[in-house]
């Protein structure tokens, strides 16, 4: 499959995400924030970083970039979209995902190998995992605290929209230990930890993140 990876001004992990897409067995297609063009891709990854310098709020400016108009429209038609870290923040600002991400409760940037439990596996990004599977991937964020009102959190839990949860240690004050959520349909997934940094043994912390990039193939072949 052809998976687009958007580069915004200030994106950091776009090249890592492209590499993870290729290692996952798909073709990586670079997309540019300033173009109204998804180049006919089958899915889109919004990578981590500090798009537009995190000015105003993380993801607040990126949300209105030309490419995001296309992403929002395609997501509405069911195209798979994965937002990682800053990408998750952009998806929340775009209202493609509920809730918001605020500064870590302990006020420090966190960078660690993080244990997670995959809770929703019927999405195009997580179907390679078993329900309840525990994985370890890198987490690195300054504004990763997931918040939403209680009614929204209850709905997310009730509808099974919590995709991943922090295990052993809540690294950023996220409510109900939420590390990732999906929209109702499941095609849009946001995740604060970085599976694209855990796809090769060479660079440490294992290959537990690879499933996010092989799931699309499995979802199609299934």
């Amino acid at each position, binding site marked *: 499959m052809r998976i687009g990876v958007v580069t915004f001004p200030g994106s950091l992990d776009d090249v890592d995400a492209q590499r993870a897409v290729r290692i996952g067995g798909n073709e990586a297609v670079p997309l540019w924030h300033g173009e109204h063009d998804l180049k006919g891709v089958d899915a889109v990854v919004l990578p981590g970083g500090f798009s537009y310098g995190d000015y*105003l*709020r993380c993801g*607040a400016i990126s949300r*209105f970039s030309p490419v995001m108009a296309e992403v929002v429209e395609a997501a509405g038609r069911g195209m798979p979209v994965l937002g990682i870290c800053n990408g998750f923040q952009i998806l*929340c*600002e775009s209202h493609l995902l*509920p*809730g*918001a991400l*605020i*500064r*870590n*409760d*302990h*006020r420090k940037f966190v960078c660690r190998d993080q244990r997670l439990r995959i809770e929703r596996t019927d999405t195009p990004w997580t179907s390679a995992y078993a329900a309840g599977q525990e994985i370890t991937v890198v987490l690195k964020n300054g504004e990763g*605290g997931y*918040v*939403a*009102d209680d009614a929204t959190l209850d709905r997310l839990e009730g509808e099974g929209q919590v995709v991943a949860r922090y295990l052993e240690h809540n690294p950023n*004050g996220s409510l109900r230990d939420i590390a990732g959520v999906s929209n109702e349909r499941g095609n849009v997934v946001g995740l604060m930890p970085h599976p694209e940094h855990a796809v090769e043994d060479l660079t440490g912390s294992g290959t537990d993140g690879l499933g996010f990039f092989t799931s699309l193939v499995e979802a199609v072949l299934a």
Partner: protein
Amino acid sequence: MSRVVVDVMPKPEILDPQGKAVLGALPRLGFSGVADVRQGKRFELEVEGEVTDEVLAEVARMAETLLSNPVIENFTVRVEESAEVQA
């Protein structure tokens, strides 16, 4: 030109780590008597022409679209009187 001010604050129920950091710094600097600090943002919009109700409504739309995130923040819109001179 008229100035319209939009104040954006984190909702009361949303944790404000920056405000907490400021609150923690005050007693270290010898300031006492502050029970809580919330940190927000202030936007000053220089608006062309008269500030009518329509203009204020338009600014409110700007505030809810871009200047604030309604999931975590509240905002207020007000006209700053031109007689006010900054010290």
